[in-house]
C-alpha cells in the first residue's frame, strides 16, 4: 500500500480528477494549500497570485492505493496536471503501513478500495 500526495495547480484539479476516474481511482482527499518551489513564487505571479509573501495557492491531493495502482495513479496525475511550465507541482509516494475502514473495521488492502 502506498500513500500518494500530489501538489498541483488549482485550475488543473478538474482534469486530474477526470484522469483519475478513468483509471478507476475514485477515492481522493483534496485540500487547498499554500506553498512555493524552487522559483520561490517569482515566475508565477500572473497565474497564481502571490499570497502572504511569496506563497502561491496550490491544491493538495491525497490518494491511498494498493501497489498495483501506483503507476496508473501517478501517470493519471501527470496527464492531468502537466503543462510543462514552472509551478506544475510535485508527486510524493510514501509507504503506507496500515489502513482502516471505520465503518466495517476492515484493515489492509481491502480497506483501501
Amino acid at each position: 500500500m502506498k500513500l500518494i500526495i500530489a501538489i498541483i495547480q488549482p485550475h488543473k484539479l478538474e482534469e486530474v480528477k477526470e484522469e483519475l476516474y478513468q483509471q478507476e481511482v475514485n477515492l481522493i482527499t483534496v485540500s487547498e494549500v499554500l506553498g512555493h518551489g524552487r522559483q520561490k513564487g517569482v515566475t508565477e505571479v500572473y497565474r497564481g497570485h502571490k499570497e502572504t509573501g511569496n506563497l502561491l495557492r496550490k491544491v493538495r491531493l491525497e490518494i491511498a492505493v494498493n501497489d498495483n495502482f501506483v503507476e496508473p495513479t501517478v501517470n493519471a496525475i501527470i496527464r492531468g496536471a502537466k503543462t510543462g511550465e514552472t509551478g506544475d507541482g510535485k508527486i510524493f509516494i510514501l509507504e503506507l503501513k496500515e489502513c482502516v475502514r471505520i465503518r466495517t473495521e476492515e484493515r489492509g488492502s481491502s480497506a483501501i478500495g
Partner: protein
Amino acid sequence: MINSGDTAWVLMSSALVLLMTPALAFFYGGMVRRKNILSILMQCFVIMCALSLHWVLIGYSLSFGPAKGFWGGFQWLGLNGVGLEPYTDYAATIPHQAFMIFQAMFAIITPALIIGAFAERMKFSAFLVFTLLWATFVYSPLCHWVWGIGGWLRNFGALDFAGGTVVHINAGIAALVTALILGKRANLGKNIPSPHNLPFVVLGTGLLWFGWFGFNAGSALAANGLAVNAFVVTNTAAAAAGLSWAFIEWIRNGKPTVFGICSGAVAGLVAITPGAGFVSVVPAILIGLLVSVFCFIAVTVIKPKLGYDDSLDAFGVHCVGGIWGALATGLFASKAVNAAGADGLFFGNPKQFLVQLFAVGATIIYTALATLVIYKLVDLFIGLRVGEKEEAIGLDLTQHRERAYTVLE
C-alpha cells in the same frame, strides 16, 4: 410648475435604482465560482461609471430627444438644453434633469442584466466595447420607441410602465443571443458549477427588491396615488412569486431552497414591472404566482433541453418574466388604476393584449438582430471569449489580476 414632493421622490427613486446595479452584482456574484466573483462586481461597477457618462453625453439625447424616427436624435447631446425647468411632455412637475437622472439608472442596469449570460468566460475589453455599442444601438433606440416622444411603439399604444420591454425583455433576449454566440463554459457537461456564496445571492435579492420600489413606484414620476399603487403591487408580486417558486421546488424536488425563493422574488419583480402602474393588487398576485411557474420551466426544463449556457439565467428570468409581465399587462390593465393607461383583455379591451404582443415581438426581433450584429463586430476586432487556460484559472486573476478571497488571514 415644480412640485417639491414629486422632485424629492424622483431623486430618492433615482438613488434606489442606482443601488440595484451593485445589488445585481452581488446577486450574480454569489452565483459564480469564487475565481470569477470580482469579474462580475467589476463588470457591474464599470457599467455604472461608463454608462453614467455615456448617458449624459449621448444616451439621453438618443433615447429621449423629441423626434420621430429610429432614435431621439442629437439635440440634447451633453445635456444641452436639458435644464432645471420641467419638460412637460415627460414630467410636468419635476426638473428636466431629475427625469434625466432617473432614466440614467435604467440605462445603467439594463446592460448589467446581460452579464448573467456571459459570466465566467467573456474578455473584459470585449465586454466593455460590446456594452457601449449595445447601449447606443439597442437600448437607446428601443427606449425611444417605447418611452420617447415620437416613439412609434408609444404612439401605437403599447403599455410599459417601468421597463418590461425596454429593460427586461430587451436585456433578456440579448442574453439569449449572448449565450448562443459565446457557447458553453468549459467542462460544463461534467461538472455544473454551484454558486460559491448563496448569502451574497440573498443580499443581492434583498437590495434588488428594495431598489425596485424606486424602479416601479418612481416611474410614476410623482409622489402620488399612482406611485403608491406601483409600490404596493411591486411588493405583492415579488412576495407571491418568491413563495410560488419555493413551493414549486418543495413539491417537485422535496425541499424549498434559498436560491429558489430569491430567483422567484426577482422573477416577480421583473413580471410586475411593465404593469405596476396599470394593474391592481389581485392581478399582481396572479402575475407573481404564475411568473415563477414560467421561469422555473424555462430554467430547469427548457434550458437543459436546448443546451444553451445562459449561466445565471438572465434570459430565463428577465426575458421570460418580462414577456409574461408585458402580456399580463394586456390582460389585467385597468383604467380604474390609471386613467392615462388602457383597459386590458379582462376589462373588456382585447385589442390591448394584441398591442402588447406586437410590442413584445418587435422588441425581440430588433434586439436579437442588433445584438447579433454587435457581437459579430466585436468578435471580429477584439475576440469575445477568453482563452481556455484563462477560463480555467478564472477571470479575476486573468482579467483583473486580483483575488476576492485569501487562504490565510
